[in-house]
């Protein structure tokens, strides 16, 4: 684990040098900041708008950062051939993969904290400091971003960059539409299609599970029990994704 941590820290430092990261972060902050522009609304509506836009901005730009940073984390090592030297060191390939995951989590955490600080600053400015419901929504967004990063990282162990970007974005969109998809599947009468749909529904991560922002914005309380259940779902999914990534990196020839 110590070696994975060393690789993780190095990945984190390397990610900090990516221009993409700063561009996305700045756009995210502008979007979050822009939510304050709706000054024609009543104070209460404006607050809802700030929360809604900020949650969406943090989630969307966080997802972009997760996808790009995870993609670079592995493909850059292969492209620049630094992986040859790393694999000649006394580390396992699992050390390498877990290290890359740690690095991605660190960079996501830093970005998430910066975006949240900006958002919280806006709330405090509006004299409405974040409550526990806002924290719950942010927590779920954060673990969703980690899962998105882990999936992209895993796909990077066996697929090309182009495929990975398309796949990760596709999964991000589909993952947010799985509930609608499930309703469609239920209405389908074709058994084969229904079966295939159900399999797909079980395999594709349901990112909507992590979305409680609509409820939080309108003041509906989300129970701790729900957060706990989604936490378990996330953990199981994450473990499976990391195991798959570890398997493929073990097989990969560079």
């Amino acid at each position: 684990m110590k070696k994975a941590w060393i690789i993780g820290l190095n990945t984190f430092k390397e990610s900090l040098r990516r221009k993409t990261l700063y561009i996305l972060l700045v756009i995210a902050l502008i979007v979050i900041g822009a939510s304050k522009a709706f000054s024609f609304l009543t104070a209460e509506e404006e607050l809802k708008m700030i929360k809604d836009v900020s949650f969406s901005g943090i989630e969307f730009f966080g997802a972009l950062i997760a996808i790009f940073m995870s993609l670079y984390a592995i493909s850059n090592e292969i492209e620049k051939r630094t992986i040859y030297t790393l694999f000649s060191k006394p580390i396992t390939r699992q050390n390498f993969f877990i290290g890359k995951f740690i690095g991605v989590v660190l960079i996501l955490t830093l970005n998430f904290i910066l975006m949240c600080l900006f958002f919280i600053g806006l709330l405090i400015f509006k004299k409405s400091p974040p409550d526990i419901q806002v924290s719950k929504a942010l927590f779920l967004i954060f673990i969703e971003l980690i899962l998105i990063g882990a999936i992209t990282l895993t796909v990077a162990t066996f697929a090309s960059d182009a495929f990975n970007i398309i796949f990760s974005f596709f999964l991000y969109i589909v993952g947010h539409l799985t509930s609608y998809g499930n309703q469609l599947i239920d209405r389908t009468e074709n058994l084969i299609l229904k079966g295939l749909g159900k399999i797909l529904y079980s395999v594709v991560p349901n990112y909507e599970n992590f979305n409680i922002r609509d409820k939080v914005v309108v003041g509906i309380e989300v129970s701790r029990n729900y957060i706990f259940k989604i936490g378990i779902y996330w953990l199981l999914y994450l473990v499976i994704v990391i195991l798959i990534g570890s398997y493929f990196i073990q097989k990969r020839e560079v």
Partner: protein
Amino acid sequence: MSIIEIKELTKYYYIGRNKKIVGLENVSFSVEEGEIYGILGPNGSGKTTCLKLMLGILYPTSGEINILGKNQFDIEMKKNVGFLPENPYYYDYLTGPELLKFYGKLYDIQEKILNERIEKLLYLVKLHEAKKLALKHYSKGMLERIGVAASLINDPKILILDEPTTGLDPIGCIETRDLLLQLKNQGKTILLSSHFLSEVERVCDRIAIFHRGYLLATGTLRELIEKYNAQGLEDLFVKTINDFDKKGDR
């Protein structure tokens, strides 16, 4: 005593389902402790493939690799091996000492020992005055030198160098050659690949000639020159390769 033993090593690369490219074909050789063993061959002859297989970077199609009595994936074995890849690329935002520290930490070297070793190595490769310079500002020669230092960070018993003088100026080549002899005198076993015949001729105790994935000849230079009735290494190199190609044509 053989410190490296390669037995019937074969590596095929597959393009699609049916097309097979030979990376290495049934290669066997051994390297004795304390010697410098040179793998010679034209581009695409399988030199780098062989080294990558030895370090567990690639998986063999068949055959055995035994280094210090362990297989190529063994972590304990890797603690005693240093590797310099061809045209080394490193994390260019790091400085030389930072790079050495990063690699050193992967060997679990104690902080104090590691710091002392980094100092020594920077002097050895004459980069002590470039301590604060990020690698992206290094010249090709400097990168090659920091690569040598990185391959020595664990004070390895075995050093595997892939084309260590590619891109170096004549002075750099001479310095690398002197360094190799110095390391040999310290008891290190060195396996290097190169297509520079003069370099190999001057430092290697034994050589192997690779071509199209096949090991054509191995032994001391004298043995091989006598065996092939050659005038020198260059003549030997050309003869073995031409003979092989002629056989292939037939």
